[in-house]
Structure formats: structure tokens, C-alpha cells
């Protein structure tokens, strides 16, 4: 039986047609000499043959219909969740933009009150912020929803959110260039940007609503 064990592996490889030409010749030589291996090979060959000869059975006629009847029907919510699963990036982007629009919108509405960076020398009168001649503001200065009378000095940037600078003497708007001797950094006005953004967001949101509600 020892001989069988060595060649058993080879016999199976022969059935799998995995042997090289040389290996096959070598094995066939051995089979001619060894009766035991020959019987083994014959039996395996017969098993192989029988398995190949197995006939297909007939399938039931109602197989397909039964399967189709068992398939789950797609509900609308399921379809929606399916499309979300199929396009995760797009879904994430849509959610992100909706959140962005909503937060911009709400922050715009809620921030109608006047506010400004805290500083000792600055005087507030109603919705007017006065930076007196004596005042020197070291850092950046931010004003929201107010009129600014700028007489002192700002060493950092001056940011105006929904605000404008008024000249206490002439009471008309001045060019940005003429404030530069009061402000060392940049003067940034955001009211235009916000108005535009608000308009844009509102427009898109209305479009979106008319798209969603038929």
C-alpha cells in the first residue's frame, strides 16, 4: 500500500489534468509496472466517470413563479433608503448643504442686534458706536448692526458686519481710502456679502420647495 500513498496525489492531479508532460509519462510508466496502483487508478477513473455521467434532474415547473412571489415588494421609503445607500457621497453632500443653508439663514435672522468687540474707550449711543479721538484699539475690532463714528485709531483690522462708518461732522458716507489713516489693518464690510448670500439662499430654498412639493 505504501506505493499507493506516494502515487495517490499524482493520480488525482492526473484526473485534474494538472500534471506536466514529463510527470504524466513518469506516472504512466509506474502504472504499467505496478498492479496495485493500476487498480487504484481504474477505480478512481470509474468514480470520475460516474460523477461526470450524473444526469440532471428536471426542475419543478413552478420554481420561478414561486421565487418571484416570494420577492419583497419595494415600498417608497425603502426605495429612498436604497438610493441613499447607493450614493452615499451625494447624500452626505445634500445633507451638508441643507445644514449649511439652514444655519446661515437662522444666524442671519437671529443676529439683528447690535454687538461689538469689547473695549473700554468705546462709547455706544443707541445703535451708534463712537470710537473717540483719544481711543487707540490695539487688536482687531468687529462691529455688528451699528453705525460707527470713527475718530480714534484701530491698530488691527476693522470688520463691519451690516454696519457702516459715518462721519460725525459731515454725516455722509466716505470712501474707504479716507479711513485708512484711522485703521492700520484692513476695513472689511460684510453687509453686501450677507445680503447677497441671504438672497441666494432664499432663492435656492424656494426653488427646492417648489421642486419637492408638486
Amino acid at each position: 500500500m505504501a506505493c499507493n500513498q506516494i502515487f495517490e496525489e499524482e493520480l488525482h492531479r492526473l484526473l485534474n489534468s494538472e500534471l506536466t508532460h514529463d510527470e504524466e509519462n513518469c506516472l504512466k510508466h509506474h502504472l504499467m509496472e505496478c498492479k496495485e496502483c493500476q487498480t487504484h487508478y481504474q477505480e478512481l477513473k470509474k468514480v470520475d466517470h460516474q460523477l461526470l455521467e450524473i444526469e440532471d434532474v428536471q426542475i419543478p415547473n413552478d420554481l420561478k413563479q414561486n421565487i418571484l412571489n416570494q420577492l419583497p415588494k419595494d415600498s417608497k421609503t425603502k426605495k429612498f433608503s436604497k438610493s441613499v445607500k447607493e450614493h452615499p457621497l451625494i447624500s452626505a453632500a445634500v445633507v451638508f448643504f441643507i445644514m449649511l443653508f439652514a444655519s446661515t439663514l437662522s444666524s442671519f435672522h437671529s443676529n439683528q442686534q447690535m454687538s461689538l468687540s469689547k473695549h473700554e474707550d468705546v462709547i455706544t449711543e443707541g445703535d451708534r458706536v463712537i470710537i473717540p479721538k483719544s481711543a487707540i484699539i490695539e487688536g482687531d475690532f468687529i462691529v455688528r448692526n451699528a453705525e460707527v463714528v470713527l475718530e480714534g485709531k484701530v491698530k488691527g483690522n476693522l470688520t463691519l458686519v451690516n454696519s457702516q462708518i459715518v462721519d460725525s461732522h459731515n454725516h455722509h458716507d466716505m470712501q474707504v481710502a479716507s479711513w485708512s489713516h484711522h485703521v492700520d489693518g484692513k476695513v472689511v464690510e460684510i453687509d453686501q456679502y450677507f445680503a447677497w448670500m441671504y438672497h441666494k439662499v432664499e432663492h435656492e430654498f424656494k426653488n427646492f420647495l417648489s421642486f419637492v412639493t408638486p
Partner: protein
Amino acid sequence: MDFRLNQLIKQVKKGNHEAFGEIIDYYQHGVYQHCYRMLGNHHDAQEITQETFVRAYTSIQSFKHKNKFAPWLYRIATNLTIDWMRKKKPLHILDQPISDDYSSTHLDQINSEGPTPEDCLEIQELNDTVQEALLELPIKYRSVIVLKYVRDLSLQEIAESLDLPVGTVKTHLHRGREALRKSLVKTIRS
């Protein structure tokens, strides 16, 4: 077929039942043969074939484009047959042999169409012997043998279907053949 199949799978992922019907047309024969040879009776084979396709439909989203469809499908079928064999010893009302020396079943009698069994009795007997021997094999060898001979899959495809390395598939194939050889020798002697 590959191109058409990809189209169909895309449709099925969107929930199209008709596209899935075409996939059933193409694979039902093969899956049924596989289940029948694994389980050995029509009742269970039909049950598991149906469940295989329903499972394939509900988990089609997990089928990746780069994979081959047939091994994926046979993997579902094989797992279901194995679960079935482990969990249930189902009732064989219609599948019990009528008597010990007659190798036909009640179901075969009900379904019998065409020529009487006498013509193909010899083939039938051979098939039954092989089937009996198959059912005696351990499940892991049986699934490899069935996929290889009944479904004619390549060793690589069998490896994908059973989630085994190709080397293990070969070992199982060899051991399965050896086991069948031994039972063949036994039947010849008896």
C-alpha cells in the same frame, strides 16, 4: 452574457423584478441541480433553491461588480444547504422510498412523465448509487465534488464559492474522490 448579466444586476439593484426573472431563468437549473445533489431529495432542493434566489435578491446590494456572479450565487446556495442539513431533519412524506428494493419515490411516481422507468432503469440505478454515495460524504467534500462535477465549476470558482483557498479545495476534492472510490469498491464486492 457577462455584459447582459451586469446590466441585469444593475436593474435588480434598483428593485426590478423582471430583470431578476431573467437571472432566475439563467441560473435556476444549475442551482436546483446543486441543491438536489447536496440534499438528495426534490422537496428540500426546491425549498432551498427558492430561498437561494430570494436571498440573492435581498442581498444583491452586497454583490460587488468585480466579483463573479455564479460563485456568489452558489455560495449562498451552499451555505443554505449546510444550514438546512444542520438545523432540520425535515419530514420526507413524499420522498420516502416506497420499499427497500425499489429505488423510486412517491414524488417520482406523481411526476412521472414520458417513457416508463424500464428504459432508463440502468442509468437511474447508477445515478442513485452515486447519489447515495454522495450523501454519505462529509458536507465539505460533498460540496466540492458537486460543484466540480455536477456544476462543472473551475477549482478557482469553487474556491470563491466556498470561501476556501484553492489548495484546500484540491485536498477536499481528492479526499472526496477517495471516499467515493472506497464506497464504489464496497458496492462492487457486496
